[in-house]
């Protein structure tokens, strides 16, 4: 197994090296996507199936699609380094030496690192019964450290606003002038993969309480369903969002905050769930979060305020 790990780690390093130094930007993007696959594999090897799921759905999947689509949308002459040449040779050498030194130091430190026996994580595993769910990562995300998760939803929302303010939609508002997706297989894809993605996404959200899965992985897969529809021209960007869409966008963060504030007078602390109701509250919050994540990721992809079904 050590050989497998070694080859995997070596491949990741080679891919990362090609990704940052490739002469061609497109090559860099492709290599980045493949590196996502390898990372997911290595995280599976490192006892982190939750993260392998997240990497597969968000890191390699949605981000890869977004990178490719962005590259496609760039004007041809801006796809290469001509206007942005890499740093001069002297800087490159200096940076190279500095990063080799940095890498060696980090490698030595990681090799010598002896994690603490009574880390907070051991405490979390020990008090899992109080958390309402069996899955430790979900317990941390939605109970022990739910505050981080809540703020992270704010990050997602603000990133979306930023993307909208740049006004560079990837999904055109009008009829798509598309030469690549008029294939007869596209409808097949739209009709088989979309429901499957929705089904798997919803399953992952629910499964998060018991095993690998959760709001983020599930939400990303649900968002992926939307992306498929956009790519197949079953959905297109819209300059305005209806109130329903905006409600879905903020549903997660709002329900989270309101539930948290409600617990202040009831339980004396923000987001301290009343005993006995922990599980239902967490599942409800999880589904709201997943909905908002899915819609946010979809709109981050389209770069538009809303989406609509095109008129035929």
């Amino acid at each position, binding site marked *: 197994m050590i050989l497998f790990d070694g080859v995997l780690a070596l491949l990741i390093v080679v891919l990362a090296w090609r990704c940052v130094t490739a002469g061609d930007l497109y090559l860099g993007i492709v290599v980045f996507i493949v590196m996502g696959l390898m990372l997911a594999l290595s995280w599976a090897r490192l006892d982190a199936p939750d993260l392998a799921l997240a990497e597969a759905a968000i890191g390699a999947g949605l981000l890869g699609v977004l990178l490719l689509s962005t590259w496609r949308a760039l004007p041809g002459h801006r796809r290469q380094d001509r206007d942005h040449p890499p740093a001069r040779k002297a800087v490159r050498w200096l940076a190279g030496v500095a990063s080799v030194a940095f890498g060696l130091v980090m490698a030595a430190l990681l090799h010598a690192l002896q994690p603490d026996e009574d880390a*907070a*994580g*051991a*405490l979390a595993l020990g008090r899992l019964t109080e958390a309402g769910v069996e899955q430790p990562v979900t317990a941390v995300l939605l109970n*022990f450290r739910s505050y981080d998760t809540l703020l992270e939803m704010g990050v997602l929302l603000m*990133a979306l606003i930023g993307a909208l303010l740049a006004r560079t939609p990837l999904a055109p508002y009008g009829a798509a002038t598309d030469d690549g997706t008029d294939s007869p297989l596209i409808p097949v894809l739209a009709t088989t993969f979309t429901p499957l993605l929705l089904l798997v996404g919803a399953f992952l959200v629910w499964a998060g309480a018991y095993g690998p899965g959760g709001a983020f992985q599930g939400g990303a897969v649900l968002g992926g369903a939307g992306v498929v529809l956009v790519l197949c021209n079953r959905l297109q960007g819209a300059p305005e969002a209806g109130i329903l869409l905006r*409600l879905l*966008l903020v549903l997660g963060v709002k329900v989270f905050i309101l539930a948290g504030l409600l617990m202040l007078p009831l339980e*004396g602390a923000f987001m301290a769930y009343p005993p006995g109701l922990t599980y239902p509250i967490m599942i409800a919050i999880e589904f709201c979060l997943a909905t908002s994540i899915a819609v946010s990721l979809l709109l981050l992809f389209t770069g538009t305020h809303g989406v609509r079904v095109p008129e035929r």
Partner: protein
Amino acid sequence: MTEWVPVLVVFVPFLAGVVQFMAGRRVIAWWPVLASVATVAVSLWLTFAVAAGGGIEHFMGGWQPPLGIALRADGLATVMILLTAVVGGLVSVYALEAHGTGDPRASHFWALWLMLWGSLNALFLSADLFNIYVTLELVTLAAIPLVLLAGPEKTVTAALRYLQFALFGSLLYLAGVALTYGLAGSLDLALVGPALTDGGITGAVAATCMVVGLLVKAAVFPFHVWLPAAHGGAPAAVSAILSALVVKAAVYLLLRLWTGPLAGLADGLVAQLMGALGAAAILYGSIQAFRQERLKLVVAYSTVAQLGYMLLFFPMAVAQAWEGAVYHGLSHGVAKAALFLAAGNVLVYLGHDRVRDLKGLDRSLSVSLLAFGIAGVSIMGLPPSGGFIAKWLLLRASLETGQWWWAVVLISGGLLAAAYIFRVLRYAFLQAPDRPPATTGPIPPPIMALPATLLALLAIALGFTAAPLLALLGGLPEGTG
């Protein structure tokens, strides 16, 4: 009830921002007013509660550290929240006009700004290393879209560069947090100190990653390259918020970590190096400010310089340096917001902000220019002003610790600040206009001129209110120096 206030200080503005985003332009006439007033009110509540009863702690979810995340409102956090309330409140008044019903993107502005307000308060209150990372990202990802509000065509390059540096800085910080967790098995600021101190080279590298990451975020020289274009290009209200509060948040974290978990690692040489970075920022920023042709860039480079003063705390690390550095943060925040709002008024009126063409403005824009001059007094560090008190405290600390070279930096920084402020004022006041200036906009209404003036007057008033504020701050945390 008082133990709830830290939560409210975070979530009243945050939730208000989310509601603003959802409700859109329909509520633009009244919701921002309500939200700002409520936020200022809870911030003042927190201030009085801490002043009366000492620090407040709240365990999120009822889970105590190291399992959960704590919010801690101590003196330092409280004065920063107070600063945010004062600057934020007055900038909000300005923004009611500048980003009111006439601005098509008003809803986005208010959603982002209110969420940013909550995020800043969350950052100040956070007592958990990873939670600090999340709040840092929140603050950054709110700040960058705000820069874009000036029109994506004009500011996108600056915003993109800001994003790149900010992302890299926070990931570097996160690398430090990862090592720290490996060493300490905890993320709480109060618990990780001993493990970092005993961590040998790992502890040192972890601390270095966190500190360098924060230096990038704080735009400390030589990582300042992203700041001037972003702060200079943003709308006036946004520039004021970014310069007065957002970059300061990263410097605040440096102070907090240095006097908290990293206190055992603080080494004389490293401290001198931090001081040297600060000194370089002061000299470089001031000289650049003097050379700029656009008023907002003068003010933006001035921020690069002024942040340097707060770093002078590190080599001295005595009580007076602590008070001086924090007080400098407060007075600079208030004064810099006044400068940016005043510069924004010039821009509204003239349609440009070229320093050489400010002639003859003293008639039409007297209130804004007066605000600029008064705030300039505090930036220069002349008495009576908050800037003076801060520099005086730092000067005394440098003499007390026998590090006279920082005194030289302090004095030359003041002189350079005088040079760039007077350069602007000379063009505006002393050169007789041959003809009235060509304007493109209306004279900004009082609701846009008054916040600048009030902030400038507050910068002066800080020269008289040092005692209660320093009492609220409390002394240098134990174990430092």
